[in-house]
């Protein structure tokens, strides 16, 4: 469809674009990225025929654009330029209608019904019909952008070139414009080539990306390959972190503001003194947010949190809408929901056990509340618990004063879970139904939180120091907590039998 073959060129003999080579298929959404001054706009001008090529060729369907007349080219390729100020008060419809110029022959061609239909249809699609009789100058940048997009679309081009189309647009218009372009590309086979500024938007919408640096090709590939930390760090001279989009299979890049020392903020160390324990709840509050992975009721998943609440609820707690109820509870007691991980347990909170374990250059604090009333063997569960969710009975908190990788988080959870199974085996706790060895309870929760300061810890498998401490610590604290639980049960049973 569109081929750029070894194109070089620039202004006044200064080569700005150097040997660019790529092709774009029909219906593809192709993005051009690069820092300021990398030659993106110059390349686009050469592709649209505004600027002569010094070398190479631009071909549409294997015909060089220099062999086409201006009108022929305009019927195949339209351009949405960056907005420039308007001088004359043309109406919106007059402006859009000018897009039909290339379809008119000579001086005597009149406005046909077909022209009118196309103009009306496109104005409807771009959502500008209702102000078609107003002057273009009266409208905001975002609306003008849509008017000129409509002008380009009534050219009925196969290819649309855009130079930073989302400039001047607020969030909703950015999405609306790019959605419209993508729909056109998917449904009508419009080939879209857009210079984009925002790497993350490019990742979301582009099928393929050209990354330019200093007029040269740095990469032409799938967004996932182009938006690598290494490439972007190198081309933009800026440190970024690549993360998957949390809802769709596209990468996103995160900027790291300021200097490294500024980002880390005040040093914190999580220790026993930060815990406050009452019959209603166990709370840990940190001055700095901790990077947390958890299966709590509130604040589950990954995120940064500074409040951690393990709340006691009655065994008959009716939890049809437990998330909402938990949020209200947290708010009531002054814990901002957005900064809090909240868990529930029916266990009596006296049955807790915690301790700070020191490692080499890091430390780990483990807090466990355990009760084994509905212990199960996870490998032999026949009917998943029906009805309302019961509050967790073994809640494990692991706080690491150190800097963990994603792998270390996951390994911490594995290690802690293995330790838990061992505790239950050693305490001879059986599944109430199958009478087999239990591995946990049906609603256990876990939390791993790290300060992300200090020593970098890559792994937390059992072969590592962190893994060993977590294994040993979880084992000890959980065993102690279960022993508290049994002791209290025994006393309670003794009292009731009396």
């Amino acid at each position: 469809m569109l081929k750029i073959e070894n194109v070089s060129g620039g202004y006044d003999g200064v080569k700005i674009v150097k040997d660019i080579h790529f092709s774009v298929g029909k219906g593809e959404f192709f993005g051009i990225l690069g820092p300021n001054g990398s030659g993106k706009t110059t390349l686009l001008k050469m592709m649209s025929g505004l600027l002569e090529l010094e070398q190479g060729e631009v071909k549409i369907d294997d015909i060089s654009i220099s062999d086409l007349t201006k009108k022929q080219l305009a019927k195949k390729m339209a351009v949405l330029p960056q907005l420039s100020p308007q001088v004359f008060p043309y109406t919106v419809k007059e402006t859009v209608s000018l897009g039909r110029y290339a379809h008119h022959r000579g001086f005597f061609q009149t406005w046909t019904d077909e022209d009118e239909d196309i103009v009306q249809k496109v104005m409807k699609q771009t959502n500008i019909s209702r102000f078609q009789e107003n002057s273009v100058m009266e409208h905001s940048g975002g609306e003008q952008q849509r008017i000129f997009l409509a002008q380009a679309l009534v050219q009925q081009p196969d290819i649309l070139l855009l130079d930073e189309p989302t400039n001047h647009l607020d969030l909703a218009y950015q999405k609306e414009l790019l959605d419209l372009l993508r729909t056109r590309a998917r449904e009508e086979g419009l080939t879209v080539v857009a210079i984009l500024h925002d790497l993350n938007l490019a990742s979301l919408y582009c099928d393929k990306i050209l990354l330019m640096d200093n007029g040269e090709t740095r990469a032409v590939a799938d967004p996932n390959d182009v938006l690598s930390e290494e490439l972007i760090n190198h081309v933009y001279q800026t440190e970024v972190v690549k993360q998957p989009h949390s809802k769709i299979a596209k990468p996103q890049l995160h900027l790291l503001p300021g200097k490294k020392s500024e980002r880390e903020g005040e040093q914190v160390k999580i220790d026993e003194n930060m815990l406050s324990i009452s019959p209603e709840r166990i709370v840990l509050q940190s001055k700095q947010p901790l990077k947390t992975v958890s299966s709590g009721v509130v604040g589950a998943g990954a995120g940064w949190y500074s409040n951690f609440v393990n709340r006691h609820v009655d065994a008959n707690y009716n939890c049809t809408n437990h998330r909402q109820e938990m949020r209200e509870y947290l708010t009531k007691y002054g814990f901002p929901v957005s900064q809090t991980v909240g868990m529930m347990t029916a266990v009596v909170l006296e049955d807790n056990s915690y301790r700070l374990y020191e490692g080499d250059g890091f430390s780990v604090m483990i807090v466990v509340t355990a009760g084994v009333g509905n212990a199960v063997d996870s490998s032999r569960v026949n009917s998943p618990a029906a009805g309302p969710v019961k509050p967790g009975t073994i809640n494990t908190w692991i706080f690491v004063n150190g800097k963990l990788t994603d792998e270390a988080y996951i390994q911490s959870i594995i290690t802690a879970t293995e330790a838990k199974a061992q505790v239950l085996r050693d305490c001879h706790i059986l599944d109430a139904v199958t009478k087999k060895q239990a591995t946990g309870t049906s609603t256990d929760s876990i939390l791993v939180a790290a300060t992300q300061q200090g020593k970098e810890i890559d792994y937390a498998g059992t072969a590592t120091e962190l893994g060993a401490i977590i294994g040993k610590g979880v084992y000890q604290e959980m065993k102690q907590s279960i022993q508290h639980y049994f002791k209290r049960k025994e006393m309670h049973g003794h009292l009731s039998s009396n």
Partner: protein
Amino acid sequence: MKSNLLKYTLSLAFLISTMLIAISVGSVSVPIPEIIKIIGSEVFHLPIGDGVDPKSISIVYDIRLPRVILAGLVGASLAIAGAAFQGLLRNPLADPYILGVSSGASVGAVSTLFFNISIPFLGMYTLPFLSILSALATIMIVLFFAKKIDKTMRVESIILTGIIFSSFLGSIISLIIALTGEELQQIIGWLLGSVSMRGWKYVGIILPFLIVGGLLLLMNTRELNAMSFGEERAQHLGVDVEKRKMLILAAGSILTGAAVAVSGTIGFVGLVIPHLTRKLWGPDHIHLLPLSIITGAGFLILTDLLSRTIISPQVLPVGVITALVGAPVFAMILIKQKKEKGR
């Protein structure tokens, strides 16, 4: 939306009424019905009724009618040239003067007077001929230099070169005036601009140029629309910008050169009329150009009428009136525009 019929009806009504009034009013006033009879008789050879003074026939047909028509043609030429230059240069303040075209034509005319040039076979036509020739030469030189400065010939480069040439040519005119002895009165009179005492001959001189230049521009109205959104935009829409730009500049120069040749330098018409027409009827060049022709003609007929009646029997140069009327009108438009923008 304002209907096209209304636009043209009102504009034509303005033109025809100014024509009739201008023919009617003067040292000897001729009633309008009589004018219609005389024109019918002279042009369409209809029988002239009784009671028409033969002296009136001469006044109307030999003096006032050619003067009014010449004024109309000059006004039309300047207005359509101005409208085209404004659209092409994307500048509502542009006019034929900005490109140095008028100055070029003036240098041609003034030199003819100063050196008393007379080309054989051309005789009386020497001055208009050289005037148009130097207008065309000026635009060629301006474009040549603009291209030297900037290969892509952006509008800004053309305007800049035009302004430089304008001042340069202006100083040549001043130099000639300084060296002038007895021809001074003649040169100054010509420079101030006038359509008086020219007769049918001058109508014949300007008319072919108006037809050629006017048609050229009317064939480029869509292109002018596209180019008023910027040259790059126009090219993306499919306009052959280089070619069209040359055509429009050449047509504008022919029109300006011809107007300057027959009437001297008459300012503000090419600036105010297109601006006013656009304000009234919209910026679409398909209608803006023909409407500017009609309104420009009417406007210059009206100002010429003022120039010969306002301090009668003294006759003022019409260029003085257009400037006197045009400048304040223009200032008012600007102030109003500024206010609207400020809102």
